[in-house]
């Protein structure tokens, strides 16, 4: 059955090949152009691409896209352009770059890589945009139309006009009309027509529109003589900038929330251990690092399933970090009970030991953690405001962790014990709570949460031995600011510090913002040494 099928498909493929062969041999220039493309240097490739676009037209689209992605190869044996894509581990699938038929005879060592550089990529995106404007799906058409706003000239205006005829989607049409309005403002003679164009442009937020309008303001570079047009342009610029400022404010707020959730994930584990046990755990950052390394190890173990590995990494990271945490608590911290200074030094030593262990086991180099597809890119709300996917993910992830912790602390017996111990250790002991056990569990919980935070951090930053150090100071800042042992305090601390930093950074620079923050914390603890939300109860005094 399957054999007949494969024969049939082979036959069809052969038939198809002969058809395309015939079509191609009718136009020998494309074949020879492809030959040239394989041998050309980067400069020559530019002109070959132009010739390919004029003689090949839309048929060249798959070739151009493959080339843009860097997957294009030339098979010397068959003289064909081949698309080679890595398929799982070490296996490559080859398809014809023009027709898309799958090829099996291609040997990886016998193909020539068609290299591209930025100048070529620019040409390719332009060519692709010209085709996609007519034939792409909605988002492709929108992107293509938008890319043409950057350079409104005779050619792009003709394309936009042509696209307007067939376009049905409102969102794409708006951009096309924007482009045409830009053209009218530049070239029309009639005052009313130009004023209408400005009125239309005023509604938009795209940066090229603003740049163009700025040129037509009374002191713009276009030297506009018609005062009515110039006045209208100035008003339009004002209007667009006002709206942009609003969206920029929203954007900064969102940036702040996302930094806040990172800080929260890094600090919340510390807040739990610090609050319950009064232990300053300098090795907390290394728990983050262990979580990140767990993500790396799991990705290595299941190479084909990058997208799913993250879900497995979360519980694994929790377990790894939690067990290391419990080990540290049982072996070291327990014996230093009530001696905060020694505990601090001992945990600092542990932090160095863990770092160097990772250096020895994994090498001092950073490890490569791949982000799943769905976490890269962004959701665009308008041309000024967009949300990056990974930040959104981390924000919701932080919320989930928060909810989980709330649940554990408020609704489980472990949580009850933890709260009892943190409020009054001796009384809890007298009531029959095994404080030793609660201490170990709390330390495990705090470390485990840090491990999960490490999974999130692995998507944002380097996975290397120094990962923990980068976050330990910030974590302490959040805990001190919010008040140790108070979940609400950690949330408020993390989000307010995150937001404040994002608003300060653009005007003062990151370095000064850092200094300012530390200063603020120093002053703050002079007045509220227990943080925003201090522990209540007799033991807290």
């Amino acid at each position, binding site marked *: 059955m399957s054999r007949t099928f494969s024969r049939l498909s082979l036959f069809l493929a052969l038939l198809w090949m002969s058809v395309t062969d015939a079509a191609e041999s009718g136009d020998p220039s494309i074949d020879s152009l492809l030959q040239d493309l394989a041998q050309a240097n*980067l400069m020559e490739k530019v002109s070959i691409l132009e010739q390919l676009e004029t003689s090949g037209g839309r048929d060249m689209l798959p070739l151009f896209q493959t080339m843009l992605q*860097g997957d294009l190869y030339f098979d010397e044996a068959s003289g064909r352009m081949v698309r080679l894509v890595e398929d799982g581990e070490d296996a490559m699938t080859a398809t014809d770059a023009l027709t898309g038929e799958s090829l099996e005879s291609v040997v990886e060592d016998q193909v020539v890589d068609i*290299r591209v*550089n*930025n*100048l070529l*990529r*620019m040409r390719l*995106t332009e060519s692709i945009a010209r085709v996609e404007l007519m034939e792409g799906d909605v988002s492709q058409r929108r992107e293509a139309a938008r890319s043409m706003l950057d350079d409104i000239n005779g050619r792009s205006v003709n394309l936009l006009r042509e696209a307007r005829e067939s376009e049905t989607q409102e969102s794409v049409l708006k951009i096309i009309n924007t482009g045409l309005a830009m053209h009218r403002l530049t070239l029309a003679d009639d005052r009313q027509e130009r004023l209408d164009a400005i009125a239309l442009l005023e509604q938009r937020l795209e*940066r*090229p529109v603003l*740049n*163009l309008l700025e040129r037509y303001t009374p002191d713009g570079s276009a030297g506009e003589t018609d005062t009515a047009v110039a006045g209208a342009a100035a008003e339009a610029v004002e209007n667009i900038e006002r709206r942009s400022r609003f969206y920029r404010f929203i*954007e*900064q707020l969102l*940036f702040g929330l*996302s*930094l806040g959730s*990172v800080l929260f994930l890094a600090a919340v584990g510390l807040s739990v251990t610090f609050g319950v046990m009064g232990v300053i755990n300098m090795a907390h950052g290394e728990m983050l690092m262990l979580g990140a390394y767990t993500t790396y190890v799991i990705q290595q173990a299941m190479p084909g399933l990058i997208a799913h590995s993250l879900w497995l990494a979360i519980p694994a990271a929790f377990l790894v970090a939690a067990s290391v945490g419990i080990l540290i608590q049982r072996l070291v911290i327990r014996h230093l009970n009530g001696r905060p200074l020694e505990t601090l030094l001992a945990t600092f030593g542990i932090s160095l030991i863990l770092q*160097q262990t990772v*250096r020895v086991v994994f*090498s*001092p*180099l*950073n*490890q*490569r*953690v*791949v*982000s799943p597809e769905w976490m*890269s*890119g*962004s959701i665009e709300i308008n041309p000024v405001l*967009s949300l*990056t*996917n*990974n*930040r959104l993910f981390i924000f919701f992830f932080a919320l989930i962790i928060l909810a989980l912790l709330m649940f554990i602390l408020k609704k489980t017996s472990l949580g009850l014990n933890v709260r009892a111990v943190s409020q009054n250790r001796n009384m809890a002991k007298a009531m029959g709570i095994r404080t030793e056990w609660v201490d170990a569990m709390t330390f495990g919980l705090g470390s485990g949460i840090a491990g999960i935070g490490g999974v999130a951090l692995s998507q*944002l*930053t*380097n*996975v*290397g*031995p*120094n990962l923990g*150090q*980068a976050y330990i100071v910030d974590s302490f800042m959040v805990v001190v600011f919010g008040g140790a042992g108070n979940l609400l305090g950690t949330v408020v601390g993390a989000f307010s510090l995150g937001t404040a*930093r*994002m608003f300060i*950074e*653009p005007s003062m*620079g*990151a*370095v000064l913002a*850092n200094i300012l923050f530390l200063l603020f914390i120093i002053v703050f603890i002079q007045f509220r040494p227990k943080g925003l939300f201090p522990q209540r109860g007799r033991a807290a005094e």
Partner: protein
Amino acid sequence: MKAGNTIAGLALGLGLASSSLVAQDQDPIKVGVLHSLSGTMAISETTLKDTVLMMIEEQNQNGGLLGRQIEPVVVDPASDWPLFAERARELLVQEEVDVIFGAWTSVSRKSVLPVIEELDGLLYYPVQYEGEESSENVFYTGAAPNQQAIPVMDYLMEAYGIERWVLAGTDYVYPRTTNRILESYLKMLDVADEDIMINYTPFGHSDWQSIVSEIRRFGSAGRRTAVISTINGDANVPFYRELSNQGISPLDIPVVAFSVGEQELSGVDTGPLVGHMAAWNYFQSVETEANAQFIEHWHEFIGNDERVTNDPMEATYIGFNMWVKAVEQAGTTDVAAVEDAMIGIEVPNLSGGMAVMNENHHLSKPVLIGEIQDDGQFEVVWETRDLIPGDAWSDFLPGSRDFISDWTPPIECGKYNTETETCESQDY
């Protein structure tokens, strides 16, 4: 052993050759390796330690140097700048090494310098740096700013028509000095103040949202914009990720980095970086016979085919080969003799052509610009036609324009004022 030597000495030369002299001649030549093997800089410096060890092993297999074996003395300054000075003193006083290969960050080099000068040691420094320095006891085999930064600006203006510039760097001496040089270079070319944006971030900066958003706004003013990045080490990955997440491709705003090489990219998901650029004097992808051999040898030595090579490794390679050649020429490892022999010495580059050591203790090297590919390697898109001599004192800084460095007679000075014709002292 000693008895054996004595017998040999007696048998050889009527008791004229003293036994201790023979013994000393066969003692190994000691080479100090001063690179951090722990702490933040271990990520970069461990590789250079291995490179030196590999070069020494190779030299020993080929019969050593002056008929003696070379013995490496490896110490770990642990990314702790004052510790660099201590370890250097230990190498020179206790171990009595003849030469030191080491240091990475400028601050570690500045910490070692007084010790090396006081004890008259010899240091080969293999990393690109900010210039404005020239010590008699140091040979700088990495790039000076005019061998990396300035050619890049010219390329970007020519090939991309860049008119607006973002100078983004980590907040320490190398980016600050480099950016000062670049800024005054741009001003010389009549670039307006409002077309230059300068931004500094702390070491290991990880939240780039607002800064990248700022760069995006700066770059969308309708004129071509590029970012010149002197961002160091770990801060780079989150920076590039944020760029790609906010939809900035190299086609919109290209980033050219001076501190990102193959090694830095090896722990990175390179997807978002493809098309951004870096400028160095060497890339692993350069196709020369010497480079192919070097890479093969490196893989064999380190036992891992995945390990990459990079520019500071080439600088170490050049430095070591130059030292070997100079010692052979001088016939001794004596510091003063080697220093004299070093000037004018030529050894092959891995990237083709010959590197020449100049009177100012800097090299003449080619400059390459590469675009990042998705395999973490660089595609060379541009290179200088000729070798560019390293300039210790930048011609584009008002304070240093008049200075030159020349360690040959009659000047013999690291900071010579050509206006007043006097030698000024340097404080490191």
